[in-house]
């Protein structure tokens, strides 16, 4: 893989070790992710993909017993430093969770929430942002007549696209997606994949997925994790056609995991 200059690195982990209590879930992970690329995290269940993803916006801070060694760098800054305000950090790093988790409020309020907590009161701006975000996440046509409806009355797939719209409304520069399509039917899945392609122009996207075809279709680079180790990280083409490690080969071809 090409070496990245400091400026090109959007996200970076340096000698990262993560523990939950006594248990070590990430072991000496090093990775550098280039701006405006899509990176897929793959690996068997429980290998630490979600944990790793969540270190980039410090969502692990709320987990009891969480402890880390090493550094996480976003835009050239160590985000675990005391000076860093996590709220600011999370405004530029959107997150989509493994399970759709809309707020028990209207569709409109869900998407407008990020602006609201930033103190933005301009109604027109909020309405425009809501519409734009819902269009981006390919949900607009289905809900445009009924934005006041409770988000909980949407289907699982619609809820997940709502959660994506909610994250996009803040216009982050980074998007962390934890298996965003695991609860979706093939049509919504392909809508989301198209969306990821488009977003790549402006965003740096990291996506966790169990779907090998999906990783192959949408990602530029792929990182394969196994039991807390980053086994191999390379261009997706290379990982899927000619991986260096046997472990990776076995996982890709479905021989284990």
């Amino acid at each position, binding site marked *: 893989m090409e070496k990245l200059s400091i400026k090109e690195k959007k996200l970076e982990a340096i000698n990262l070790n993560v523990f939950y209590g006594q248990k070590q879930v990430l072991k000496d992970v090093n990775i550098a992710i280039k701006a405006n690329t899509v990176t897929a995290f793959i690996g068997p269940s429980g290998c630490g993909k979600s944990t790793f993803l969540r270190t980039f*916006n410090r*969502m692990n801070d*709320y987990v*009891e017993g969480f402890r880390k060694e090493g550094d996480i760098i976003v835009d050239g800054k160590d985000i675990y430093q005391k000076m860093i305000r996590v*709220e*600011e*950090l*999370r*405004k530029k790093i*959107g*997150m989509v*969770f493994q*399970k759709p*988790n*809309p*707020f*028990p*409020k209207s569709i409109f309020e869900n998407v407008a*929430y*990020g602006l*609201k*907590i*930033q103190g933005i009161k301009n109604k027109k701006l909020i309405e425009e942002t809501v519409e734009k975000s819902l269009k981006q996440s390919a949900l607009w046509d289905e809900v445009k007549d009924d934005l006041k409806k*409770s988000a*909980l009355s949407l289907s699982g797939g619609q809820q997940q696209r709502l*959660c994506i719209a*909610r*994250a996009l409304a*803040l216009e982050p520069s980074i998007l962390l997606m934890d298996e965003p399509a695991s609860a979706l039917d093939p049509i919504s899945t392909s809508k989301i994949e198209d969306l990821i392609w488009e977003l790549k122009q402006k965003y740096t996207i990291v996506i966790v997925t169990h779907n090998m075809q999906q990783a192959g279709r949408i990602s530029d680079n792929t990182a394969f994790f196994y039991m807390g180790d980053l086994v191999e990280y390379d261009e997706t083409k290379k990982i899927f056609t000619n991986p260096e490690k046997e472990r990776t080969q076995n996982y890709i071809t479905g021989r284990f995991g």
Partner: protein
Amino acid sequence: MTSAEKNRIKDKLFGYFGLACTLFGIIMLLVFLSDIVMKGWEKVDFDFLTNYSSSRPKKAGIYPALAGTLWILGLTALIAIPIGIAAGIYFEEYAKKSKMANFLEINLANLAGVPSIIYGLLGLQIFVRSLNFGASILAGACTLALLILPIIIVSTREALKAVPDSIRQASYGMGANTWQTIWHQVLPASAGGIITGIILAISRAIGETAPLIVIGAATYITYIPEGPMDKFTVLPMQVYDWIGMPDPEFAKNAAGGIIILLLITFLLNGIAVYLRNRWQKKVKW
């Protein structure tokens, strides 16, 4: 007989037993209620609500006691609700795992089980004497507020606990801080449960007599309290006073007072049930 058949019979028997127990409870309550209503209904009219206490049972009314009860209710709510909710939020959202919080939590559970007369003694010492409130509405309300505080805190915590963590995560993930998350997401989602708990706590406070007797609340009041430092009496104390009268006519007054007291309680509980159902419909996970 096979064991499956045996189990089925046992199951049936227990079902009947449970039904009998339930019926027993309901029937006792109905008997008690109808007795009260038969005795006291003739008393309940406009005059009864607006007359002052009197040595002649036909003329005696509950006006001062009703006013006192409403005063006490209002002031108790004013004191207990903000403190109770704030403490509940602190325990559930901020201090989740500290040793201090654990210690306080155990004591809170104990406090909820302390007999109400002990609160009366506490109120007498702190509010009536040390703070020099005298046997005033304020002293009574502070004492009752202490009494229902643990109930409000515990029910607030339960309501907050019922809000799934994924909602908090979503909010934090969007860059909200803890307070924004609580204010915009957690509280609205748990409001039904919190309000229900508050109303039930307050309807418990209405019926309390012992702590108010201990702090020295009067039984015979000939005026309507106009401020929190005034002396007062409350409905249950008025009822208690009448029951002790030698003239049997006063028993009817007591029954009338009980009817009013029950009506207030039922009204509050009705509101609690209504709010709970409304919010449950709105918020479904």
